[in-house]
Structures are given as structure tokens and as C-alpha cells.
């Protein structure tokens, strides 16, 4: 194998390994993911296909048509508890998951 073939192959292998590592990091818990990403250089976001890896790693197990996992959570002002199932047959519900940061 010619030298430049070997170099190209090595680069491709290294790129594949980096993508696999990034994918595995994205599947970690948010806390662990954040602690790792704190030390990842910004260059990684340019070199690696971050978005498609992220979409696949964070896809989750729920699909359209599946029963929505029920929950019963307190309101932010602690004045009550809301159960998702209580809205059944009444009207659709939009769930906006997020945080301040």
C-alpha cells in the first residue's frame, strides 16, 4: 500500500473512532456529558458531524403513537400537582421540556 493510501486510511479510521467516541459521550447522562464537553475544544464541533450524531444519540425510545409516559409533578409555585393523564379525552397537551440555562 502506498504511503498516502495509508495516511488516508489512518485519517478515516481516526475520524470514525472520534465519531464513535462522540456518539458514546452524547449518550451519557446530562451531568456526565457536560463534564466531558467542558474539556472538548470548539474545533470538534466543526470537524465532527455533531448534529446528526446528537439526533441519533438522543433519539430516545418513544415514538409517535406510543402512550405518553404518565407523570404526576408539582407545579413550580407548589400550589398543586398536575397529572398528565388527567387531560385525557379533554384536549391535547403540549409539553415544553427545558431549563433556564
Amino acid at each position, binding site marked *: 500500500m502506498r504511503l498516502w493510501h495509508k495516511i488516508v486510511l489512518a485519517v478515516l479510521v481516526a475520524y470514525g473512532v472520534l465519531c464513535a467516541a462522540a456518539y458514546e459521550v452524547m449518550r451519557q447522562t446530562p451531568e456526565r456529558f457536560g463534564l466531558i*464537553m*467542558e474539556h472538548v475544544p470548539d474545533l470538534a464541533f466543526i470537524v465532527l458531524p455533531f448534529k446528526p450524531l446528537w439526533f441519533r444519540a438522543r433519539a430516545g425510545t418513544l415514538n409517535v403513537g406510543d402512550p405518553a409516559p*404518565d407523570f404526576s409533578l*408539582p407545579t413550580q409555585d407548589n400550589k398543586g400537582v398536575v397529572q*398528565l393523564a388527567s387531560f385525557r379525552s379533554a*384536549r391535547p397537551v403540549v409539553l415544553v*421540556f427545558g*431549563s*433556564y440555562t
Partner: protein
Amino acid sequence: MVYIEEAHPIDAWQDDDNIKAKIFLHSTRTRKERCDVAGTCLVKLGIEYPAVVDDIANTTERAYTAWPDRLYVIDRDGRIAYKSKPGPFGFHTEDVAHALERLLPDSQPSAKPSPSVTRVEPAIPSTPGKAL
């Protein structure tokens, strides 16, 4: 809104936008801390629809793979009618409006999102759905 664990706490992975906005928050370790931060979020971002707070074990977030942010529409039968791709890249409020229009075809067309709509606030149309 279902308030979940922080996306960019300073004890994990701080975000440049938060630094510019002088938002420095630790990960919340107690329910009270999370409720307090959620309250600040609701006020600062002008969120007027009801908000619940996930437990510190992040049970609901894990069930919905919701971190850092995500949108779902649940139909009247309790089934998932729309599931966004994971945020921030997949957080598109206009898709929520389209999903609601499919579920409520006799309602008025969706309003355009206001310029003040942020990533955590969906463009809820004037249809009788419920935002949480």
C-alpha cells in the same frame, strides 16, 4: 412547561450565551432549588403557561429523553402525536403548531410565532390545546 435539569450549569458545561447574559447557575440539587430557578426562568422568559418541576432524580426527563430541551404534543387519547428531535437543534415551535392543527382541524389557523418567542416557549395558536 416541564422544568428539568439545567442545560448549562456552571459546574458542568457553561455556555457563552449564558456568560454574556450573566446567567450563572449551578446544577440544582434539591427540589426547592429547582423550583426557585424555575421561578426565575418563568419570570425572565415571560412564560405564562403552567409549569411543573421534574423531581431531582429526573424521572420524567429520562422517560422522555427531554434534555436539554424538547417538545411533545400528546393527543386526547394520551398518545404521542408529535415528538421533536432533541434540542437545541430540533426545538421548532412551528412544528407544534402544525401538530395541533392536525389534532384540532376545526379550530382557527395557528398564529405566527411572536418575535419574543424563545426556545422554551412554543408558538401556541388560538386552538383549545393545553400547554404545559
